[in-house]
């Protein structure tokens, strides 16, 4: 079955490359490449879903040894429950995105090299799936690099745009730094384990000295953290996600950054096992920072895709809160609570993939219909794109963690996992936990504010530009996958019990505990720890629906049949409401910018042109800039240091061949001496 999956991806790749080579031919070839490429991606994704479901619900891992090659032996594909879970999440979203791409890519058919896009898309899917099922560090790293490279080219797909080029280079630079840390990590493992195979590492890891373990932990945190986009390693993310084509953005934001989470969970829980308490506290601190700053930066964005990209940072933060809690509790020996934290994190992984994928696809449809990502130019799209709006609203409610959708359930689990930590008699826990809980609450509320802005300004009110006025609904083949993702958001929201057994399987394989049956099948989400609260999101949703009887019934009893009339909005005495008098996205986020002004360090500039009288201003220009603290205070100084070093090192580069020969001679001599001594 693995073979079929790989074959599917490769088939797409082959067709893609063939069509890519004949790009300037008739328009039939790119179309064929598109159809065949995305069809094979779709089939491969569906197979991936089946495969992961088989492993997750049977609990049996799949181990497949690959034939040894000249350089690499011991190759294997290992699908244990953790791999299967991530494989399933990736496949689920890529199935929807592949379907969406049939319609979305049409726009590019005449303008760009679609064969190349299809080729990279399939290769990207293949590398992501490969990363999570690799059973050996060498292929893992190769696939990891392949993933970085394919996304580098995908970000650079619209390469005539300087912003895309800059984003792509920033991304590849950060990725390489990350990979360097991962290589150090695996080499350290090798030094003590004498093998690159994950199975061997797992077996021998407990005997690694704790100081080395700490170095490995930090390497993994930085290496995987860059891919996951945790603050302060996030700087590539808000540039890269908007630059890529929207279907690719959906995959990058929805699942690619999760491979970072996969790596962390794999190394922290599967390889290293319980460590000192500060590991968990460090992760919780990074998580809370990412969550709060991610959503705060999202609030000031008017670029719909950049806004969503910052929300990915926020959600990675929320996921890491679960991971951090799990680390903390497992280091204190409470594996049951650790299992809960891990389950919460993993649940948020799949939820975020669903709603963020949905939102990016929605943003793609808006972009295709209006040719702008700036929400200040949008508005009123709910009339022109009713179905897209509905699906985007579902995604917005889900990401704001409101009941009865899926985001609420995983955030609730995160709250419970954190709060149950109060039962542990340990002072640091009792200080860290309430602060994290408060910051999670802050994050949730700010996310809701941000999505009121994103949905309200984009889809409601009056259109603010001609582009928005002339928008049209997306094609049916684009709406269908969005509808499926929206339906899944609702399904997992009202019936989280469907997925919970899978989390039990994973936590059992990693921590040796399963949050028992009570946690599983029933309608109520009871936690297996005494004192935990419970929710029954399905029943809650049903009672919300049932209660509709009250306002409708009372209204009918008192007032009889409702009389209604349509009238224009009151325009404060002006003739009618004009798009210009509406609230803007900048205006909407102003109070929050004022409240958190220490963080934003915003500078704004107002330029008023007064011509006739001070009361009638023909033109006002307003420019707002928020400072990216990390770029200014961390990256720029580091960059400056690197440049200074390079400049100094330039002195050694004379350009004369004699000098280089001398260098080689000296190096050789030094090496010989070293080996002898």
């Amino acid at each position, binding site marked *: 079955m693995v073979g079929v999956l790989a074959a599917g991806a490769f088939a797409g790749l082959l067709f893609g490359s063939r069509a890519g080579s004949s790009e300037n031919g008739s328009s039939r070839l790119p179309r064929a490449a598109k159809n065949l490429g995305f069809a094979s991606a779709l089939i491969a994704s569906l197979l991936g879903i089946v495969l992961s479901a088989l492993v997750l619900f049977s609990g049996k891992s799949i181990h497949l040894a690959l034939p040894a090659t000249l350089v690499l032996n011991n190759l294997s594909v290992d699908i244990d429950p953790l791999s299967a879970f991530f494989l399933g999440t990736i496949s689920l979203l890529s199935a929807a995105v592949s379907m969406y791409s049939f319609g979305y890519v049409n726009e590019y058919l005449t303008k760009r090299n679609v064969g190349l896009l299809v080729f990279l898309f399939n290769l990207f899917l293949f590398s992501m799936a490969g990363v999570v099922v690799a059973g050996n560090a060498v292929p893992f790293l190769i696939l990891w690099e392949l993933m970085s490279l394919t996304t580098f080219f995908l970000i650079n797909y619209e390469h005539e745009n300087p912003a895309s080029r800059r984003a792509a280079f920033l991304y590849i630079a950060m990725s390489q730094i990350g990979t360097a840390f991962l290589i150090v990590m695996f080499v350290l493992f090798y030094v003590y384990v004498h093998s690159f195979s994950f199975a061997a590492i797992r077996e021998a890891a407990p005997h690694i000295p704790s100081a080395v373990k700490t170095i490995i932990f930090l390497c993994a945190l930085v290496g995987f953290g860059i891919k996951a986009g945790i603050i302060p390693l996030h700087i590539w993310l808000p540039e890269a996600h908007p630059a890529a084509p929207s279907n690719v953005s959906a995959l990058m934001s929805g699942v690619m950054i999760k491979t970072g989470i996969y790596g962390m969970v794999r190394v922290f829980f599967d390889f290293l096992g319980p460590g000192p308490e500060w590991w968990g506290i460090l992760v919780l601190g990074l998580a809370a920072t990412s969550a709060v700053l991610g959503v705060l930066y999202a609030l000031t964005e008017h670029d719909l895709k950049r806004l969503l990209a910052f929300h990915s940072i926020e959600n990675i933060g929320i996921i890491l809160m679960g991971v951090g809690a799990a680390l903390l509790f497992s280091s204190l020996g409470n594996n049951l609570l650790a299992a809960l934290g891990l389950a919460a994190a993993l649940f948020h992984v799949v939820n975020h993939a669903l709603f963020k994928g949905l939102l990016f696809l929605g943003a793609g449809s808006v972009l295709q219909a209006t040719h702008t990502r700036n929400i200040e130019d949008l508005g009123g799209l709910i009339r022109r794109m009713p179905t897209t709006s509905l699906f985007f609203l579902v995604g917005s409610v889900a990401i704001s963690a409101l009941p009865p959708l899926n985001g609420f359930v995983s955030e609730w689990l995160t709250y419970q996992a954190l709060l149950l930590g109060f039962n542990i008699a340990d002072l640091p826990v009792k200080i860290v936990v309430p602060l994290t809980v408060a910051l999670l609450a802050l994050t949730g509320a700010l996310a809701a504010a941000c999505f009121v802005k994103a949905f309200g300004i984009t889809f409601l009110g009056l259109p603010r530009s001609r582009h928005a006025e002339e928008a049209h609904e997306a094609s049916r083949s684009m709406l269908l996958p969005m509808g499926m993702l929206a339906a899944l958001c609702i399904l997992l929201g009202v019936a989280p019990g469907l997925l919970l057994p899978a989390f039990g399987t994973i936590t059992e394989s990693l921590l040796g505990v399963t949050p028992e049956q009570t946690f599983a099948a029933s309608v*109520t989400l009871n936690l297996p720890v005494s004192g935990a609260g419970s929710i029954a999101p399905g029943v809650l949703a049903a009672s919300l629906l049932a209660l509709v009887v009250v306002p409708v019934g009372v209204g009918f009893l008192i007032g009889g049949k409702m009389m209604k009339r349509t*009238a224009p909005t009151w325009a404060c005495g002006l003739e009618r409401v004009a798009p210009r008098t509406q609230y803007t996205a900048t205006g909407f986020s102003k109070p929050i910018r004022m409240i958190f002004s220490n963080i934003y360090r915003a500078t704004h500039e107002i330029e008023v042109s007064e011509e006739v009288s001070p009361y009638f201003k023909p033109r006002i220009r307003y420019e707002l800039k928020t400072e990216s603290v990390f770029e200014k205070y961390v990256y720029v100084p580091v960059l400056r240091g690197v440049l200074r070093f390079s400049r100094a090192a330039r002195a050694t580069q004379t350009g004369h061949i004699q000098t280089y020969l001398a260098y080689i001679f000296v190096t050789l001599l030094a090496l010989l001496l070293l080996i002898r001594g």
Partner: protein
Amino acid sequence: MIQTLTSIGTLVIQLVFVLTAAPLAAGMIRTVKARLQSRKGASIWQPSADLIKLFKKEVVRSATSSWVFQATPTVVFVSTLAVALLLPILFKNVPLHWMGDIIAVIYLFGLGRFFLALAALDTGSAFGGLGSSREMSVASIVEPAMMLSIVSVAVTAGSTDLSSIVQARLANPSMTINPSQLLAFAGLYIVTIAETGRIPVDNPDTHLELTMIHEAMILEYSGRDLAILEWAAQLKLFIFLTLLANMFFPVGLASDCSALGVLTAIVLLLAKVLVLGLSVALVESTNAKLRLFRVPELLMVAFILSLLGLILHFIVGA
């Protein structure tokens, strides 16, 4: 069978009680405020009469608005009323308490607020945007304070389940006068004022002022839509006062459906809400509305109070 019937009876009694008592409590606060300002004021039945009047009136909807505007009153009302199914208002043990805990309650209010803020943007009126933006900003700083104050109550019960919290407090009523719980109470009190839009955070009596928050969001609503929204706002106020009353002073809650028990519960709860309502009226009459950018400072106080309460709980161990 009998058990199911009592469960249904319990729920129906609670719902009907909340629905009728909420406008009354709002009327009472208004009357008290009038008296404090040496006015006679309207009867405490006025809000109920207003609701009935509004229900009979024609609905005028903006031509710019969409189905979001139409659906919002129902969503806001239903998500608020659902809290009455989870909260021990008259009974110690609510039949559906397993459906959601205190965190679910906070997020249910969030659901209503989300849609109300969207509906405000839907008409294209600048007032709507203004209210929507302010509401979401204030809410985002209320939330952490609310979560912490609730956590400090929940840790004493060892659970976030509302019925368990109430029962734990009943078993040990003196817990309420612990310093940590007093601080949590103060924090939650400030949160209540902010969440229900009272002075000094928002002024419920203002209409067409540039300082308004909640009123600005519902400015374009009329007739039956407005009635439902007003009723929902009264419900929210009543539920928050009940939350304060029953989490900290759960005296007199009924344990079954007997007439005597329910009656005692109703009388005692009304008395508790009366006292809290009096204090809200007093705060409203003696304070001026804060400037919008002073509100975060007030809420920071609530946050710090709750955090101190929590830390005290661990240090003193009570």
